């Protein structure tokens, strides 16, 4: 009996998954789309590397140059010794990209949500979260002191109903939704949510972690694609997906935004981003804007994979976005399918409850602009082969229908 005995149930799950080799360890990563796993060259189809910039020569040289000239780390928080000119430069670049007055950079995307959600609303306020929100949003809601209410996933009517129930109660209301949801790849019905926001006088925050560089003509995300940027009061995002590094941010036009720098604990009490990371992120943000072809390639690859999987009869999420999840009937099949894909040279994410919505087991893929058509077709052929070997495709075809 140890202090961790309270997690006995999770330990059983962990040991079972460990015995199946689910905790992958890459021998090396060769490119945005290939790595070595157990001595075998493997296609990477689950790394959220949407624009494929992790090996971009310009991003790498900027990171090297900044590291040489400014050192490997700042060894301090932003409010102490950790603010360099490059942090301010990155914040200005983000504000300009979004056409907003203010931007603030965090050391991870997770911390951006922890910091912003725990600070924008406090005791006596009301935080309204989509039920399928990412863990960082739930954790941010727990770090603050506001009342937290969950509404049904992607359901503006349910959100409206819950805001109506708050009528007459004091306090600010903050609605939080995501641009693209990380498990099924579905987008929020942002136009309708923005209408609810306007009618009820709430504030609206959109987490564009998976939609920055992916959606919208300029790549600003779902708010841009849905044409409701003026209704979105705060945008949160991450550098660790389309921008290929690590870190998080928040942008806004709120006139007193900068007070966050003195009240937001996950910003104040952590070391700031190292110069190399800031430099590569700045370069990636510049590429995101100057090379719209990356986004076109990405969406082309996503459509090809999505259509191919659907044509084979797999159950996928509702939209052809770069996150494409394939539903498995149970955990045993999901693990077996995932292992066979990996043995065939295809890596993707095995997602099992509680990380998934509606308790479904998923094989979660994420497509990159850097994938070649040949890699996408190899992935599809591998799915078809494993599906046949497991006698899976026939029954899937008969079921025909979506996950969500």
């Amino acid at each position, binding site marked *: 009996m140890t202090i961790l005995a309270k997690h006995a149930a999770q330990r059983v799950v962990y040991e079972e998954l460990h015995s199946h080799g689910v905790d992958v360890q890459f021998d090396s990563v060769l490119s945005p789309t290939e790595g070595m796993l157990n001595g075998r060259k493997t296609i990477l189809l689950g790394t959220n590397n949407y624009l494929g910039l992790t090996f971009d020569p310009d991003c790498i040289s900027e990171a090297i140059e900044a590291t040489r000239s400014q050192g490997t780390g700042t060894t301090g928080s932003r409010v102490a010794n950790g603010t360099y000119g490059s942090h301010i430069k990155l914040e200005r670049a983000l504000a300009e990209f979004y056409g907003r007055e203010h931007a603030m950079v965090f050391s991870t995307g997770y911390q951006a949500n922890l910091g912003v959600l725990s600070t924008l609303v406090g005791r006596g306020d009301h935080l309204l979260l989509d*039920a399928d929100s990412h863990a960082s949003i739930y954790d941010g*809601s*727990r770090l603050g002191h506001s*009342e*937290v*209410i*969950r509404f*049904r996933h992607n359901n503006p009517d349910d959100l409206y*109903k*819950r805001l109506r*129930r*708050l009528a007459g109660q004091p306090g600010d209301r903050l609605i939080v939704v995501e641009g693209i949801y990380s498990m099924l790849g579905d987008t929020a019905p942002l136009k309708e949510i923005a209408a609810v926001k306007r009618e009820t006088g709430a504030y609206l925050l959109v987490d564009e972690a998976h939609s920055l560089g992916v959606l919208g003509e300029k790549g600003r995300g779902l708010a841009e694609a849905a044409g409701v940027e003026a209704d979105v009061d705060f945008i949160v995002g991450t550098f660790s997906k389309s921008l290929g590094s690590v870190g998080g941010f928040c942008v806004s036009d709120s006139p007193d935004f900068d007070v966050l720098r003195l009240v937001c604990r996950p910003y104040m009490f952590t070391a700031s981003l190292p110069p190399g990371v800031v430099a590569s992120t700045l370069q990636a943000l510049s590429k995101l804007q100057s090379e719209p072809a990356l986004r076109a390639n990405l969406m082309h690859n996503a459509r090809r994979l999505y259509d191919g999987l659907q044509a084979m009869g797999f159950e996928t999420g509702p939209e052809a976005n770069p996150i494409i999840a394939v539903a498995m009937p149970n955990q045993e099949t999901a693990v077996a399918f995932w292992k066979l894909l990996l043995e065939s040279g295809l890596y993707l994410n095995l997602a099992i*409850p*509680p990380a998934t919505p*509606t*308790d479904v087991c998923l094989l979660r893929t994420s497509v990159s602009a850097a994938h070649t058509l040949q890699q996408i077709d190899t992935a599809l052929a591998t799915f078809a082969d494993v599906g046949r070997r497991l006698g899976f495709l026939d029954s899937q075809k008969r079921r025909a229908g979506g996950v969500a």
Partner: protein
Amino acid sequence: MRQIRQLALVENKVGPPEKVIRDDISTIFEQVLGHPVNISDRTDIVEDLGMDSLGVMNFVMAIEDFYDISIPLDRIAQIQTVGDLIHAVEDLRSGTQQ
């Protein structure tokens, strides 16, 4: 859910609010679980009724719809038994009526 309310009205259920809420909750449990349940105030929602986290979420949302209330997440975290749930519903309903 509206059907449950009508049923309660038709049968002209009277008595302390706890009793009425317990009957409503019992009916909602049966709808969500798909089989009859025998509950008391001491019934543990997860342990005794075998609900997983998704089941609990669906059940809570059904309760919220039925009573036209929202149960904040910190309140949900404190609810372990049917008795806890009845008290939470009573509190939130009286809050709405004020």
